[in-house]
């Protein structure tokens, strides 16, 4: 596939399950690959050819996505040379109109038990790519949609073109505000009917109907694996592109170097999103008077523990995958996370109230209080809290040596404490990293997946380390800027209590958000 055809693919539109950032990344990747003259063959799937299905086939692909307020079907038709020839003499507009009528006749959408009418949401596109023997083929893309609110069970049946031979495939794509469980695999190997697999184990697809079970969510798709062994989930939109990056890698788009750089970049960026213990790292380095060397060590620990965390969760998920899916686990983990945050907030608040009662101004280290609050972004770093809880204990414990005093006493950083801090920050596996790992397993690209995760973790650690160094450098300045005016003093006293209340509130919010997904 040339860069040009890929651009056409992008221009055709409707690919709204990709964010513009990914599109940009992909263009950059494509451009780089072009400039360097590196063929994307490195990761390209083995031999594919034009129409191995025969010159008389009519191949169709439906991509269904269910959003909270609509059901959309992107219908693609690739008609081989002979049927195209049989339509000779008709204008493209007439041919397109005919195909649209056939699609509207042959696609049957049922939502929650009743038939729903699909309507074209755009005029559609038709083109006549060159085929064999100097003949043309026909390619049609249509966007159809039905305005349906909160669909729960969606069935699409494709009976277009009767029993004409050809590829027949239906896949589910991510929708807005939903998580979709599909009865058919979510991947299809033809690159939208452009290249058909010619491999030993690939039979021509003959999928005539799909059933989707939909619940509120964040754009994930849960589907059987293409080889029929178990289920796999493709993350939806919350994966900030890292999972999409892996998809690109598997389909051979982009070179390894570019991919690794991109993984690193995503990791670095991802660290800036809430929920990675940045506040804790900073607070720790401030509170414990760390040095730049400590910051680097902390970064290294984060890399190792994050990688281990992802692997561990991946192994657990794979072991449990016979019984349940990570997506089924996440709502529960979210609930547990929410409850834990409430608990932590309550404990902090209680301690605060008690110290107030005994007249003690215990300036509790920020990290203890802020880190859980950091998670209140609904990210659902559930598993982190299970692991993190234990680690946090060690962390708190280590703090009590120094933190028991009214003021932060100077303290030399001990390796154990440093490790604990790094682990607490790193043992929070990002769902997108987990998706990449599981995707790698399902695609038999485990080595690539592991490599990408390590690089991703490195990127994550790089940001945290940089942050740590910045904090260390700025600390002297910050110390001098801390005045002791009465108002500020009062604020400093009240702040921990206020933050504890905030934590409880956020925990309640998280819990409340987690509950509907389970019910």
């Amino acid at each position: 596939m040339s860069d040009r055809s890929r651009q056409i693919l992008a221009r055709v539109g409707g690919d709204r399950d990709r964010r513009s950032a990914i599109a940009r990344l992909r263009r950059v990747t494509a451009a780089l690959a072009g400039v360097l003259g590196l063929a994307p063959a490195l990761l390209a799937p083995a031999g594919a050819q034009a129409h191995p299905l025969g010159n008389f086939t009519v191949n169709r692909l439906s991509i269904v996505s269910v959003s909270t307020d609509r059901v959309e079907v992107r219908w693609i038709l690739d008609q081989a040379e002979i049927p195209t020839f049989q339509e000779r003499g008709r204008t493209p507009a007439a041919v397109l109109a005919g195909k649209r009528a056939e699609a509207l006749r042959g696609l049957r959408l049922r939502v929650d038990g009743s038939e729903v009418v699909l309507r074209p949401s755009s005029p559609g596109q038709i083109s006549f790519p060159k085929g064999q023997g100097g003949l043309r083929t026909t390619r049609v893309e249509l966007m159809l949609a039905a305005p349906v609110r909160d669909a729960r069970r969606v069935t699409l049946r494709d009976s277009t073109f009767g029993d004409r031979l050809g590829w027949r495939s239906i896949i589910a794509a991510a929708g807005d505000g939903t998580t979709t469980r599909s009865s058919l695999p979510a991947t299809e190997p033809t690159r939208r009917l452009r290249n058909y697999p010619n491999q030993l184990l690939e039979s021509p697809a003959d999928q005539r109907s799909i059933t989707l079970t939909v619940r509120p969510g964040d754009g994930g798709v849960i589907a059987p694996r293409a080889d029929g062994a178990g289920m796999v989930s493709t993350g939806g939109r919350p994966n900030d592109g890292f999972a999409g990056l892996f998809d690109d890698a598997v389909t051979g788009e982009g070179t390894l170097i570019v991919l690794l750089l991109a993984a690193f970049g995503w990791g670095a960026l991802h660290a800036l999103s809430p929920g990675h213990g940045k506040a804790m790292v900073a607070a720790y380095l401030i509170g414990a008077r760390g040095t730049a060397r400590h910051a680097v060590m902390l970064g290294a620990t984060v890399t190792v523990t994050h990688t281990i965390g992802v692997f561990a969760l991946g192994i657990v998920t794979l072991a449990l995958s016979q019984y349940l899916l990570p997506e089924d686990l996440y709502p529960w983990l979210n609930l547990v996370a929410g409850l834990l945050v409430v608990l932590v907030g309550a404990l902090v608040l209680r301690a605060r109230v008690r110290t107030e009662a005994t007249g003690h101004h215990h300036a509790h280290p920020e990290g203890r209080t802020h880190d859980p609050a950091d998670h209140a972004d609904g990210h659902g770093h559930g598993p982190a809290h299970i692991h993190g809880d234990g680690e946090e204990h060690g962390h708190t414990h280590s703090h009590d040596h120094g933190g028991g005093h009214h003021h932060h006493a100077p303290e030399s950083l001990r390796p154990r404490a440093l490790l604990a801090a790094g682990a607490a920050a790193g043992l929070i596996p990002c769902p997108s990293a987990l998706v990449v790992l599981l995707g790698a397993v399902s695609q038999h690209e485990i080595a690539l997946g592991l490599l990408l995760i390590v690089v991703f973790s490195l990127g994550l650690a790089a940001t945290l380390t940089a942050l740590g160094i910045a904090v260390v450098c700025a600390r002297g300045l910050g110390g001098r800027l801390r005045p002791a005016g009465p108002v500020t003093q009062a604020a400093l006293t009240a702040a921990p209590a206020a933050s504890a209340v905030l934590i409880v509130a956020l925990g309640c919010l998280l819990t409340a958000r987690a509950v509907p997904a389970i019910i």
Partner: protein
Amino acid sequence: MKLIPVGRPMKSVARMRALLIACGTAFTITLIVLALTVPPAPRTPDAGATALSRAAGGSTAQRVQRLQAAVRARPADADRLVAFGSALLQQVRETGDVSYYAQAEHAIAGAIAHDPSNAGAFTLRGMLRLARHDFRGALRDGRRARRLAPEVVNSLGVLVDANGELGRYGAARDALQRMIDAKPSLGSYARVSYFRELHGDLAGAREALALALGAGGEAAENIAYIQTLQGNLELSRGRRGAARQAYRAALMRSPRYVPARVGLARAEAAAGHLGQSIERLRSVVARLPLPEYVVLLGETELTAGRGAAARRTFDLVRVQQRLLAGAGVNTDVELAIFQADHGDRKRALTLARSAWRRAPSVRSADALGWALTRAGRARQGVAWGRRALHLGSRDASFLYHAGMSARAAGERRLAARLLRRALNADPHFSTLRAPKARRALNAL
């Protein structure tokens, strides 16, 4: 922990409590996770259903899937690959979808690579080559399979078919005799039937088909195939009712079986229901536009006086020919005859000569004779026509071609005899040619 400030005891009590609460939470989490993991089956109801249908055996498509999984589990197992390839070839027979050939070819190549002495793999490759009209290659594979495993009957089928297509009827008969002696089966009886038909023994052919039906086959398609052959045989004897019945029976077995649908269309045309026949052929051609079917559709349209439609249909044949040539597929006997009748006569001669070189059978001799006659070399045409009939065939098309050649060559008595025989064998053998034969006969 040594220096305990005031309020510390209180705080440590609080921490103890916190610890207890945390332990409780951890316990709860464990319970939740356990509760989630305990019910294993209901999560994937589909998996159970699939397992059931797999155990049940079922259709060829299911067999293909099952064997696909088996091959995936052990990709170097030659026997599994052979079984998989065999199921794929059966899939093509049922659906007419030739895309499975590529897959089958991969499977067979894999089997041969892993086990170069696997007789089954060579038999299967022979079958695939027969399907692709590489008869010499098929003969080599059949012989090799026979050498590797002389006790296995399957390879004899390849030898019968390849020898027959290559015009080596003596060798074909010997192999067939050995086959029928070793193991009477649907496959061997079907070949006996074809062999007898070639030699003009229609009653014997019919009998063999009845035996084939009695022997039974693994897939529904096997029976449908025999029933369609029965229909063809009845139709060529002018017994349209019996033919229709046989085709319908085949379609009951295998509802989309294309040869039976084509048979029905021919029976309809023979009965003069041209519109019905054209409709049916159009639906067949839409699904599977093999040149043979497209030509039949065009000729029926021509008979019905739909010249414009026929021209469009014939254009399609030419396009197909271009595509087939581009893909390196053998040009066929049907295409040579089509060009002789409706197209470029010089091209027809080239095609027929190449067909003869590749497969010197009576079918090729018939095509070459007709192409020669249409190219203005009727005398040679007659000689090749005799060659096509030398086994004693009573095929109306062969007789018609030979008769028309004789007429063009000025051999009036021979022409009259041949044309009469053609019309006696099957008065409706072709909607287009039967009337021509009748007119020619009257004029002689």
